[in-house]
């Protein structure tokens, strides 16, 4: 039905965002397009709907039955968008018109595409809501009255309004918690009929494997592998990506692919993955591999293999428990800590009854979905928020007794790494200035700065030659390492990492975790590792706390929690994570 051949898309800046890509989507088929940030997958979605920025050029062909999509301009797209191809755009949840009712927006799409009468369109709108399993009264709701998952369902209903042959869903589950993600993917799978094809675009390879019939994997603008979703992976990048997903089993190694994806301008004649590939040979650098059939799949690699060892560096996992506990005593202790947010209209319990000890050299994981009180916990430990109940002791000081300057002095002994590496670094400061900032704030003598900065960069795994760069000249992973280096510069006793990996590409996450592990073991640093990803916590932590609606519902070693979760939320969480990761992936192991 949709046949893409030799598709090349060039942005106005002259660099190809997508190069010689070809794949098909059949009627009634779900095809997944997977890849990391900047791989070009969203560019393909935009090209299919004519939404590329003006000045972009598209060569090759993308045919939907008899309809050629490449080379259309302006008004040619009417009758295609929405009518033949429906889209669930990236960030659709935030992309509904805020001041019009859901019903208005649905009937508008129905009427624009089908010339239905007003009454018929309303009936159809209710019908569409039913298809995405929303009640009929959603029609009178405004977007802000719906949850993220509900809004995503509305976006899917909108994509279906014109009865299109093909639905393109761009990152439909990003930003939703795991349980809701699974619901949305189920819904998309159920919407498949024998006439409608679905192109599912996501960075989340394991999630795609659960619903798609076939998967195409992109890297740096090229298609590296496509084949049946449940078949074996052959390309080293695909295999690396799968192995980079943290498993719930601690003995399954968790790897990261070293390096970062090349900028389009740096692409040479060879294989784009060659600089990061463990199987690289001389011909890889000079010759671009051509897609060729390997088993059921098509692979663009000179050395495809589904069983050759990968040799990517795995993140070290702990043996559990650290010897120095009794000798030194805890770095921080929370006793009966609770917090209630009060506004004029309501009270929200953010935390209740938290008892925790943080030991030197130990990584303590805090797992929970958004709104579970994870970040509130971090704020309380930093003394940025006074808990409404309980006692917090950090480095031997009761925080409730401290004010002003003395409270701020406590923060000089703590390191904090925030979720978003893009906003957390001041855009006008250089790496050297950024890393030295805590020293300047703490009043450390100036002549000590340079040495401390160099050491912190080294501990965070950053090359020293980045020292003069500004944040916009760094990749996401590098930025997060700068944030870690900054947190380490003041020689903290405790490092608090609040979702520090969640905005990074999958292939680099394990590297960050490895760095934290190394720090804990070599310097005796205590780490509070906050995450929503159970697998990641299992892989990187010595001990875990599961938070749900502010209450610590289970505490223990990773294997205890995964092996015997308490009924209720922990059990649901473990089940959802198992489903998400699917049956143990068919990959080569990392050893």
């Amino acid at each position: 039905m949709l046949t893409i051949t030799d598709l090349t898309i060039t942005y106005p800046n002259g660099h190809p965002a997508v190069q010689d890509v070809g794949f098909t989507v059949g009627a009634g088929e779900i095809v997944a397009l997977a890849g990391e940030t900047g791989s070009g997958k969203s560019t393909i979605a935009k090209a299919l709907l004519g939404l590329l920025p003006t000045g972009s050029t598209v060569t090759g062909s993308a045919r939907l039955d008899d309809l050629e999509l490449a080379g259309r301009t302006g008004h040619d797209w009417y009758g295609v968008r929405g009518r033949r191809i429906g889209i669930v755009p990236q960030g659709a949840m935030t992309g509904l018109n805020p001041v019009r009712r859901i019903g208005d927006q649905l009937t508008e799409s129905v009427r624009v595409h089908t010339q239905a009468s007003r009454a018929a369109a309303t009936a159809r709108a209710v019908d569409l809501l039913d298809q995405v399993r929303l009640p009929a009264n959603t029609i009178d709701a405004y977007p802000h009255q719906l949850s993220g998952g509900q809004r995503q369902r509305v976006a899917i209903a909108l994509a279906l309004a014109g009865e299109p042959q093909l639905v393109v869903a761009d990152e439909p589950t990003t930003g939703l918690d795991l349980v809701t993600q699974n619901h949305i993917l189920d819904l998309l799978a159920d919407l498949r009929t024998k006439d409608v094809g679905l192109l599912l675009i996501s960075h989340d390879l394991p999630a795609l494997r659960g619903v798609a019939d076939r998967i195409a994997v992109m890297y740096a603008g090229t298609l590296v592998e496509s084949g049946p979703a449940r078949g074996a992976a052959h390309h080293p990048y695909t295999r690396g990506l799968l192995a980079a997903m943290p498993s719930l089993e601690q003995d399954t190694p968790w790897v990261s692919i070293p390096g970062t994806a090349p900028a389009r301008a740096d692409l040479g004649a060879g294989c784009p993955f060659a600089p990061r590939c463990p199987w690289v040979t001389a011909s890889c650098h000079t010759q671009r591999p051509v897609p060729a059939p390997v088993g059921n799949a098509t692979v663009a690699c000179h050395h495809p293999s589904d069983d050759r060892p990968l040799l990517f560096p795995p993140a070290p996992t702990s043996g559990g428990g650290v010897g120095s506990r009794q000798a030194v005593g805890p770095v921080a202790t929370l006793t009966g800590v609770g917090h209630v947010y009060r506004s004029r209209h309501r009270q929200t319990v953010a935390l209740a009854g938290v008892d925790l000890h943080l030991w030197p050299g130990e990584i303590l994981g805090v797992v929970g979905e958004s709104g579970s009180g994870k970040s509130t916990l971090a704020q309380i430990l930093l003394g940025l928020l006074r808990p409404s109940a309980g006692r917090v002791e950090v480095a031997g000081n009761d925080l409730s007794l401290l004010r002003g300057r003395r409270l701020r002095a406590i923060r000089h002994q703590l390191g904090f790494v925030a979720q978003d590496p893009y906003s957390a670094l001041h855009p006008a400061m250089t790496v050297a200035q950024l890393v030295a900032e805590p020293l300047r704030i703490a009043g450390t003598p100036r002549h000590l700065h340079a040495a401390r900065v160099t050491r912190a960069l080294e501990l965070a795994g950053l090359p020293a030659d980045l020292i003069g760069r500004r944040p916009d000249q760094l990749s996401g992973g590098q930025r997060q390492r700068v944030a870690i280096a900054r947190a380490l510069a003041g020689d903290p006793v405790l490092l608090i990492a609040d979702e520090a990996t969640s905005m990074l590409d999958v292939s680099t996450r394990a590297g960050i975790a490895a760095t934290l592990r190394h720090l804990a073991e070599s310097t005796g640093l205590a780490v509070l590792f906050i995450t929503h990803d159970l697998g990641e916590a299992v892989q990187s932590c010595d001990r875990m706390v599961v938070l749900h609606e502010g209450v610590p519902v289970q505490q223990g070693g990773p294997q205890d929690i995964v092996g015997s979760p308490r009924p209720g939320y922990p059990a649901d969480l473990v089940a959802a994570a198992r489903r998400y990761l699917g049956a143990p992936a068919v990959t080569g192991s990392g050893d």
Partner: protein
Amino acid sequence: MTVASRPAPARIGLARAALGRAGGYVAVFAVALTITFLLPRALPGGPLRTLGGGEVGDLDPAARAKVVAAYGLDQPLHVQFGRYLRDLIRLDLGESFNGGRPVVEAIREALPWTLLLVGTSVLLTAAVGVLLGVIAGLRRGRGKGNLLLAGVLLFDAAPAFWVGMLCILFFGVHLGVLPTFGVTTAGHTGLAAVGDVASHLVLPVGVLVATGIGQFFLVTRFSVASALHAPHVEHAHARGIPHRRVVARHLLRPALLPVHTQLMMELGWLVGGALVVETVFAYPGLGRLTFDAIQGRDYPTMQGTFLTLTVTVLVMNALADLTYPLLDPRIRARGRS
């Protein structure tokens, strides 16, 4: 599914927000009351000094006694304030120092003219300013959009009194097609009288519109240009909604929300701000009454007009606050902070 049950708490939030706002209005009103009360008592050269244009000593004892009695100046301050409030509740604003006419009567006569002038001007200004602003916003950075921007900035820069003078010169003196002062010419009845009033309105309204569209234009242009790439606008394009429809139904309505606030602010502002234009065109409105009162040190009239102006601004603000949630469902739910 909680969709169905949402509207009820939304309404409570709205009521609560309105209540909070009301407290604010009461506070502003109280301050305005105090200012108007202190006006004749605190200004350098109070009523005792300036009445009759001379110094205190020059005032003959009888006149002086009259003023002291009129303001109760021989009483302690709190007694004076109590009396002032009591009179106010009875809508007794005293009598003008110039001619002894009750101030309430003068205001009652002037206010409708000002409301007519300002109401017409603001509606026209908003209509023209928004229309041009939308055009310029959609074409931002292109030839036509820039030209429009330059033209509007030029008019916005011109002082109203100067434009008014030039208009009188051209339309009144040279062309002789339009009346240039007052609100009526004697001798018209019925429909002709309406036409007469309308023809008197043309020039002052024209000047206020020409020199006033700038704010509406800029607010609209900025808001529309910002909304061009809003996610829901791009989403609507991606769904295949025709361009014109996207602009009309998805881009403009959210983008024009700030214009509503601007409209209400302008209404409140112009009630006093039309003063200059009223003076130029000898238009017997509230602004001119205020100006003449200040010039003639006519304290009772000054107090009356200031109070009226403040109340008008407050009423406009309240209207803006009350009607805004009708336009923006998000505010309806949250209440305003």
